[in-house]
């Protein structure tokens, strides 16, 4: 590869990066504008006087902290339960045999192709009948059921651990629950990390679930941000919307920047290998 070619490629990529990042920069810029600056046309590229008060107003004018707490609670419930349950089931598929296992595994893989939103609406109707709407029980149920994709990830990892390990444990009188808990789970931290990151970002970003299952007072940040911040005429207060959105998006971006490799390994193995 020649030098000019390399330079040209870097230049093109630099332009792509600028295009990809500019929406986030615009969001930050908007979040620091006064409402007067927000209303003027043409828009300014960067606020003449950054107005940090937008952030405090974004927190106080809607129940930001309450919604953030709900988001965290739901994210915590689904992350812990989904990860544990998926590891548990993945262990079963990797290390144990029984009639019907092959068929079950095919079903597991097939469920990854089921349309999730389509099944979500009738699930809501059932939970409504059971009076479990506006509680966290649906997330407990989803968490315990595990995620097909994460089960698959754990299964692939556990299948690669040498058999001698579990044989030694069996000779020492350890049951399969003990083998899972004491030997396999502690070794699988790379998958656990990927699982935690994927389930956390999914729960934090989910809109339909909380929009359907939770009332306006007990909802999550995703829903609060999508509908909040309007003036008394019902028009959106765009600078507050931006400030709220920055605070809502930031935790995920920070998690991404620090745990990049886990993010990538989690997504890129998406059922291909």
């Amino acid at each position, binding site marked *: 590869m020649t030098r000019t070619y390399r330079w040209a490629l870097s230049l093109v990529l630099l332009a792509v990066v600028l295009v990809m990042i500019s929406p986030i920069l615009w969001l930050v810029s908007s979040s620091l504008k006064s409402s007067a600056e927000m209303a003027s*046309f043409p828009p300014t590229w960067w606020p003449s006087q950054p107005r940090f008060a937008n952030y405090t107003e974004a927190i106080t004018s809607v129940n930001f902290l309450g919604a953030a707490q709900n988001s965290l609670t739901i994210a915590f419930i689904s992350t812990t339960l989904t990860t544990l349950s998926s590891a548990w089931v993945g262990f079963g598929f990797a290390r144990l045999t029984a009639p019907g296992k092959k068929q079950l595994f095919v079903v597991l893989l097939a469920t990854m192709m089921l349309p999730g939103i389509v099944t979500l609406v009738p699930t809501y109707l059932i939970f409504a009948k059971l009076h479990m709407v506006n509680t966290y029980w649906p997330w407990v149920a989803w968490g315990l059921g595990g995620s097909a994709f994460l089960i698959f990830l754990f299964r692939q990892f556990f299948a690669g651990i040498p058999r001698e390990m579990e044989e030694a444990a069996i000779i020492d009188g350890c049951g399969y629950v003990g083998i899972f808990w004491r030997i396999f789970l502690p070794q699988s931290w790379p998958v656990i990390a990927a699982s935690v990151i994927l389930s956390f970002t999914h729960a934090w970003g989910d809109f339909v679930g909380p929009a359907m299952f939770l009332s306006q007072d007990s909802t999550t940040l995703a829903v609060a941000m999508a509908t909040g911040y309007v003036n008394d005429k019902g028009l959106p207060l765009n600078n507050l919307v931006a400030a709220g959105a920055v605070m*809502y998006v930031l935790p995920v971006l920070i998690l991404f920047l620090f745990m990049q490799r886990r993010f990538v390994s989690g997504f890129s193995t998406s059922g291909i290998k």
Partner: protein
Amino acid sequence: MERPDRKKKPPTLRKARTFYLFVAPWVLGFIGLTVFPLGYAFWLSLTDSDGLSPRTHFVGFQNYIDIFHDPLTLSSLAKTGMFALVTVPLSILAGLLLAVMVNQPIRARGLYRALIYLPAVVPPVGAALTFRLIFDRDAGAANGILSTFGANPITWLVDPNARYVLYALVLWGCGGSMIISLAGLQDIPRELLEAAQVDGASYWQSFTRITIPLLSPVILFQVITGMIGSLQSFAPLLLSSGSLSGAGAVPQGNYLYMIHVFAQYFSASRFGYASAMLWLLFAVILLVTLLIIKVSARTVFYTVEPEGAK
């Protein structure tokens, strides 16, 4: 030879029982949270339920017949198909092109990868709000750019322009596709490409004859998941009102099928009809998936047997 037999049998039986103990959470979850809800929706789709009145009547397939006489439902289905046909190939192509570029040996390519992928991890609500701000008529950057060139501002978020905002929003996340294609590219054995080079193949030849065939399972995977995702997309709802019952605020050009389903459930309370709509979508998605797999069977190249066939 009685002893080994007797000794062998109980452990396998116990192993089988242990297996079922381990997979039980997923099996129960699958039955309770997927199979049963879908069955319940099917039963509802055969009734005139409105979700409130205790009395519902069995109406047979009337709701399904109604769907085909409802121009709004049919047009929303057509728009959804159009949306999928535009965004899925574009995202995959853009992702593949970017993957090839960031796979070259250039400086700081890790940084390029991370920053191009970054938008894909932004939560959907955050992304939609960001695009609402960029394409705002007065305060948006898009019209700001237009005005520096002396052009008149455009009202982006209404018909007929709203669809381009939607496409842009989806394409902003093409870094996700890039990462998947990149992983596929990195799995291609280097010897193959080197051998082709030694044999005098041009870059384009080895790309079309080696890289693309070896990448085809990865592309197929993206086509399938992309189609499933976009056929049930409700992103325009986030771009306009941000509420499940706010279908009225969605521009006609972006009135996708799932938005109509939400409107039927949460605004019109037509539970029976909405459930029939869900089942139709379910059938369409299943059919499209099977069709893609069938059509691709001849063109997709597997170096190893796909999982599950083992």
